[in-house]
């Protein structure tokens, strides 16, 4: 157990150090605050903490260890990396200041989290409250520290909604869905239709988001119905097809003319097509989806006091999506523990046996699809309003795959794992990789390129060392390594872990003691 705590502590330290090296400045303080709390929690995980004192010792030790790494990284960043990128050295004092604050904050966060773990019966509540404080204050801290991470965190939270929804279908009910982005698209386009000049409807966002979720749920049922008899691979292929069809439909619904069908038949029989009664798009074909150019602009939410949400002001958006995610986590938790949730896990385990227990397979599967789709409907509605424009190319196959990877990487069927998987993939992709690219480029420009004489080699170096271009490669590599090292995901569902791991002594002992 302690060994595991040390291992996770090392991982956190590596993340914190990397963050400081890449971003510099006050990022050490922000990451120290976030990961210090995580380190404190992990140090106490699975242990009996008799009093806050024990927790404080464990937590602040973990926070301090993390903080030392932040301090070291700050010094390296300020004294070595900064000059290497062509800027003047920060000097020891400033490096010590940034790192020192990071160290103090990390230790404090670990200390506080440790203390809360010692609260006995209120331990869980206190941890949740602290977590809530961290999440609520994050954009403020982000602003003070000038790290500008809030926009990325909003993206992470949008994908968190998607991953949570997909986890219902794949993780709980065991139905492999490769076309999940379709529901995201349907949610977004529903929002686009109902609150944009496209068809001259400007409904209120607070109403539209519910309609979008309902329409997505309905689409889930419509997709689910033909797949009920399919299992495993076959189901995956059908959902894949659905995921491909939906964006294509949205791309092509640009010239709609609808005739009343009976009059149309008569008109063609008579050989006089002008007699057909036209219903929609009579004068000129009606453009529903805007094709490749998409729908733009989409209406934004408005609240009293705040007014209409603006694109540059992240705070209201952040709190809205945070609220949606928290609401979804609570709802899905209730669903999982309900009768329906038990029926889901039964059909995941064995359909025939589940059916013999008197579980209605049709209803249970359709509800899994519908519930899963509902949450991506929320995500789609938020996304449409947030970006204020939607294009069919945003919802292609890669989105379905990435969301599926988040679910599998984090741990199928475990919400904490899924959220963690989502955070890791999105943060790496949207935050760390671009920053890494920038830092590498500056280093290349100041240190390497001036010293390379051969112009061909110089060109080659300047264009080929770009981590952004390698992102799919890095992503694939991560997946391969993960599946070999930890096939059950980062935070596995206990059931799945038992199945995937060979029954070595440790897990056998665990099973016995349960």
């Amino acid at each position: 157990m302690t060994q595991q705590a040390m291992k996770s502590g090392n991982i956190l330290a590596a993340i914190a150090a990397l963050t400081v090296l890449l971003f510099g400045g006050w990022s050490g303080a922000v990451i120290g605050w976030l990961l210090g709390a995580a380190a404190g929690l992990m140090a106490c995980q699975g242990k009996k903490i008799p009093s806050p004192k024990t927790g404080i010792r464990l937590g602040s030790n973990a926070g301090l260890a993390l903080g030392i790494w932040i301090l070291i990284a700050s010094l390296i960043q300020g004294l070595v990396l900064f000059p290497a990128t062509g800027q003047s050295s920060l000097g020891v004092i400033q490096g010590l200041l940034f790192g020192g604050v990071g160290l103090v904050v990390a230790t404090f966060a670990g200390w506080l989290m440790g203390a809360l773990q010692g609260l006995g019966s209120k331990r869980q509540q206190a941890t949740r409250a602290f977590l809530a404080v961290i999440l609520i204050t994050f954009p403020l801290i982000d602003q003070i520290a000038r790290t500008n991470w809030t926009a990325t965190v909003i993206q992470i939270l949008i994908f968190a909604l998607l991953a949570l929804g997909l986890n219902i279908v794949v993780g709980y009910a065991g139905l492999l869905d490769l076309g999940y982005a379709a529901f995201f698209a349907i949610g977004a386009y529903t929002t686009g239709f109902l609150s944009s000049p496209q068809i001259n409807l400007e409904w209120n966002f607070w109403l539209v988001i519910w309609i979008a979720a309902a329409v997505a749920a309905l689409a889930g049922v419509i997709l689910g119905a033909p797949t009920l008899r399919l299992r495993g691979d076959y189901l995956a292929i059908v959902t894949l097809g659905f995921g491909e069809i939906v964006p294509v439909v949205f791309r092509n619904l640009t010239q709609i003319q609808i005739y009343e069908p009976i009059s149309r038949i008569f008109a063609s029989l008579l050989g006089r097509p002008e007699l057909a009664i036209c219903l929609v798009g009579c004068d000129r074909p009606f453009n529903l989806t805007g094709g490749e150019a998409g729908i733009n602009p989409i209406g934004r939410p408005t609240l009293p006091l705040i007014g209409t949400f603006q694109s540059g002001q992240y705070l209201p958006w952040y709190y809205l999506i945070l609220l949606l995610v928290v609401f979804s986590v609570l709802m899905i938790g209730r669903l999982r523990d309900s009768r329906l949730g038990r029926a889901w896990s039964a059909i995941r385990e064995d359909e025939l046996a589940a059916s013999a227990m008197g579980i209605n397979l049709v209803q249970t599967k359709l509800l899994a699809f519908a519930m899963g789709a509902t949450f991506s409907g929320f995500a789609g509605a938020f996304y449409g309003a947030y970006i204020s424009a939607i294009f069919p190319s945003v919802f292609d196959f890669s989105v379905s795959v990435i969301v599926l990877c988040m679910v599998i990487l984090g741990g199928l069927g475990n919400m904490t794992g899924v959220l963690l998987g989502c955070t890791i993939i999105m943060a790496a992709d949207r935050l760390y990789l671009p920053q890494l690219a920038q830092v590498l480029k500056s280093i290349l420009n100041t240190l390497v390129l001036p010293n390379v004489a051969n112009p061909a080699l110089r060109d080659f170096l300047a264009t080929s060392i770009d981590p952004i271009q390698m992102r799919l490669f890095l992503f694939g590599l991560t997946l391969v390594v993960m599946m070999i090292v930890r096939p059950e995901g980062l935070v596995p569902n206990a059931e799945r872990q038992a199945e995937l791991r060979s029954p070595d002594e440790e897990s056998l002992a665990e099973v016995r003691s349960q």
Partner: protein
Amino acid sequence: MTLLELRDIHTYYGNIHALKGASLRVEQGEVVTLLGSNGAGKTTILRTIQGLLRPRQGSIRFEGRALESLSTEAIVRLGISQSPEGRLIFPRMTVQENLEMGAFSRRDSLGIKADTERVLMLFPRLRERISQKGGTLSGGEQQMLAIARALMARPRLLLLDEPSMGLAPMLVTQIFSIIRDINTQGTTILLVEQNARMALTVAHRGYVLQTGQIVLTGTSKDLQSNETVRKAYLGET
């Protein structure tokens, strides 16, 4: 009183005619066994009774009610539950959760609690393993769990599909004595078995199924002394 009656049942797997007009009857309180070799259609009969397969022709009546058009869900609620062939337990659920799934069709939590207690009395081994995952149990324990889970629906008719399959001889004897206990406590049982010798010791009556048709029926005693049965199913010459 007749609890279950099948009349001239024809069931198909696609184009394969699996049951060719099978008829049988189970009286209240009986243990009736269905004998037959591999592929005779024994499992098909049980699945047809529970609505997992639909007969193309024929009638199934349970206490006078027609079952052919009811969903499996409704049939389970009427009081027919099954311990399926090959012990299809839920491997990643604990023993406790498996039992709860067995009671899925019921909503009376007090009754469920009482029945959990009752089946754990019948199968004390399961009590020892109550929080262990189903998949980690031994073969015999899994079979016990499958039967116990079927009992959790508080069935009036219990369908048992090959409870002795793949078990050591001593366990087989144990399982069959429990089957007898379940019957004495008032549950009617339709038992499908390849182990004809054991099946005929607990059953009151039996049917012999051959390529989708009932070819022989009688009391266990009659069947035990029947020439054909002795040769084909009891392995005597």
